[in-house]
């Protein structure tokens, strides 16, 4: 792979806090290596800003290997930028070329208020999990693991759904700011496994109710969430959630 350096113009959303009015600011960075990750390019910019006596840009990041779900930049109008199936931290600068202008925004959704610059509040996701994204089993109650065989195909599907990293890109990508892909991934994982069966109905009903309460929008089956999901969580999970939800609505005794 050939390496090259580039000079870039960055238009970055700056916002002092939740209540302040935000706006774009323009920065330029020089000699960015194509081998850098996108966040390392931001490190270079922040180092430059600190050395100039200015305030660096606040952004969320932690593991930088695409699994913690903390990084969350909307890059040139796309959640996590141009590469498919990739988090912002795994996006590398060889996706760009010398002279490019890159626009970077925080996730845009009413349920994800901006805390500062590119950092948003995603605790709504935690509250949705609290509403039912678990199997109610206390520590110490478990039978031997192999007493519960699980069809490999279903186990694989459950794993594929469980791969969701909770980053919120689905919400950011959705024109309605719907959280259906996130909710459906958890509901699907547990609906596909025998362990999740006893609470299947209440889980679907309660998680959807919490999602609505948090102010996420409705799903109109556009598919932007699946297209932008860094873990490529499938839209079929939403179909499964709909079945679970409707089925629960008909048959739930509550």
């Amino acid at each position, binding site marked *: *792979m050939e390496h090259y350096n580039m000079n870039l113009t960055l238009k970055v959303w700056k916002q*002092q*806090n939740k209540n302040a009015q935000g706006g774009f600011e323009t920065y330029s960075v020089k000699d960015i*290596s194509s*081998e*850098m*990750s996108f*966040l*390392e390019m931001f*490190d*270079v910019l922040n*180092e430059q800003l*600190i*050395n100039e006596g200015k305030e*660096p840009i*606040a952004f*969320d990041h*932690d*593991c*930088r*290997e*695409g*699994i*913690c779900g903390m990084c969350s930049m909307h890059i040139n109008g796309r959640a996590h930028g141009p*590469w498919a*199936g*990739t988090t912002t931290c795994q996006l*590398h600068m060889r996706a760009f070329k010398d002279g490019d202008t890159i626009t970077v925004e925080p996730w845009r959704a009413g349920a994800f208020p901006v*805390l*500062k610059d590119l*950092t948003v509040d*995603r*605790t709504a*996701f*935690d509250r949705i999990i*609290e*509403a039912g994204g*678990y*199997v109610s*089993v*206390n*520590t*110490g109650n*478990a039978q*031997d*693991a*192999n007493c519960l*065989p*699980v*069809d*490999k195909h279903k*186990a694989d599907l*459950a*794993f594929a759904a*469980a791969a969701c990293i*909770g980053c919120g890109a689905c919400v950011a990508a959705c024109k309605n700011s719907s959280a259906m892909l996130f909710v459906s991934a958890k509901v699907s*994982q*547990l609906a596909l496994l025998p*362990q*999740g069966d006893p609470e299947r109905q209440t889980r679907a009903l309660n998680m959807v109710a919490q999602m609505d309460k948090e102010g996420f929008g409705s799903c109109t089956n556009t598919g932007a969430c699946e297209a932008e999901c860094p873990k490529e969580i499938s839209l079929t999970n939403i179909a499964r959630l709909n079945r679970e939800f409707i089925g629960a609505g008909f048959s739930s005794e509550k």
Partner: protein
Amino acid sequence: MLNAKIPAGPLNTKWEDYKGHCKLVNPANKRSLEVIVIGTGLAGASAAASLGELGYKVKAFCFQDSPRRAHSIAAQGGINAAKNYQNDGDSVYRLFYDTVKGGDYRAREANVHRLAEVSGNIIDQCVAQGVPFAREYGGLLSNRSFGGTQVQRTFYAAGQTGQQLLLGAYSALERQVALGNVKMYSRHEMLDIVKIDGKARGIIARDLITGELERHFGHAVLICSGGYGNVFFLSTNAMGSNVTAAWKATKNGAYFANPCFTQIHPTCIPVSGDHQSKLTLMSESLRNDGRIWVPKKQNDTRKASEIPEDERDYYLERRYPAFGNLVPRDVASRAAKERCDAGYGVGTSKQAVFLDFAAAIERYGNIEAGKRQLSNLSKAEIIKLGKEVVAEKYGNLFDMYAKITGENPYEQPMRIYPAVHYTMGGLWVDYELQTTVPGLYSLGEANFSDHGANRLGASALMQGLADGYFVIPYTLGNYLADEIRTKAIPTDHPAFVEAENKVKETISKLMGIKGTKSVDHFHKKLGKIMWDKCGMARNEQGLKEAIEEIKALRAEFWKDVRVPGAEKEFNPELEKAGRVADFLELGELMCIDALQRRESCGGHFREESQTPDGEAQRDDANFSYVAAWEYKGPGQFELHKEELKFEEVIPSQRSYK
């Protein structure tokens, strides 16, 4: 001499015996006992959830925006358990023995045996929670091998085992939050311990969004804040991973044990330039199927595909025929360094070796062709089938490698090099996981207890969950049973006021320096000192130099660091500054510890102490102890020793040949 409070009796009945006799707290009393948990990785989340289930009032803290982000999430390869589902000779004793041997006989036998005993329960618990482990076609759980063992005892979920286990613990935690048993404080950082009458009674935390300081009372405090690998700046840890909580505990009287025991993981993506912010691990599980090699010729610049088989040196298979590519991490890392230092390294930097899947792809292709009863396939068709199998096993790791390097590991071998990954050292704890401060506990990577001088692969997840799910629920009760008469202490108590003022002072000092260099500038400098002089190989002269260099760097930091922004706002630079300030103190202690341990063991390789063929040479007569350091003031530490007594396993020169 430190008292580890190891129960009497034979090794295999100690834990049963302890559980049968420890004190209990009745349900009504549990409701008025408050427990603070710092960190929400596998250890913290499992502890908080389990204690919440028991009925304690729990407050859990993490610096990330959600407890699900803790760095346990990034663990790839798997979790060990002595289930013996493969009928290949595994047992609790084998897991115990492998772990003690793997740790180069510097771990406490009783703790390790307990870990092996509860390992099976962990798998049961996780499956019950809906953790989607890999399964065979019959619906039963699948296993694979890891380094330092000859059985298949590792349970896994593709290359995302840590993620799935953490999400399991996180869901259990969120369930307790919903039930009102746990109150979660995300985007909060613990900045001091509050001690009253010698006991841990609370913490001072900073709300990272508003910058406000908060006081929280607890009858006990659990430090589950992970390891300190980021002292090296470049490591496989998350950017935010830090030692601050453990270090504040140290400064409040908890001893810090074996700080020099750090694990350098052999298979990471090599450094590519000065801009690098972190290193990425390629799971040890890849050594199940990948073969490690370098060219037989020095400074060979040919592409891997152009180097014929007989001109390749599969040096691990050559040096260690019994374990081959699956030797423990410390051994594999040193062997890679040896080859690169001798001029056989590959890639532009020459600081890398190949990890090659060509043979595995062909082997799996043939097996798959056999399974599907396909004959007369061309080599290309077999390779295609083989790639599919490899993708199912390691797909996410291969994708990650491709994204970072721009190279396709299905077509050409990966380039890998060792990197800092895990820290075996940590807060000294006794058998009950209590530090030297009553009421202050430490779980998971943050403590020192189970891995000796080298941790085996897939054992970190096991230990974190063992501590949180199956150990602390018993041992904490044994302490809290005597605290049922202690009413919640109001946080206007002078000890809280004093601790908060101390934190305030430190923050104001950091903000007030207004120097010329960024926090990262100092962090990178510290990392370079540590890597060069307290890294994969250490010697007396280098360590002495490092201590002086760190002292000087620390002084410069406190004179010249620039922390932009304000105190009472979301300020990531201020967070980093506090953490790096602590790393600058810890780094010195690591070098002091490495200097006093004039032997090689596990990940600690003193160049002065090696066997004729370059293996780590222990000195059991003089160093069979845990080095626990008491903080006595800036740069001042007093050494306390816990003698290690081996009743079951006779320490010997570790051999994987």
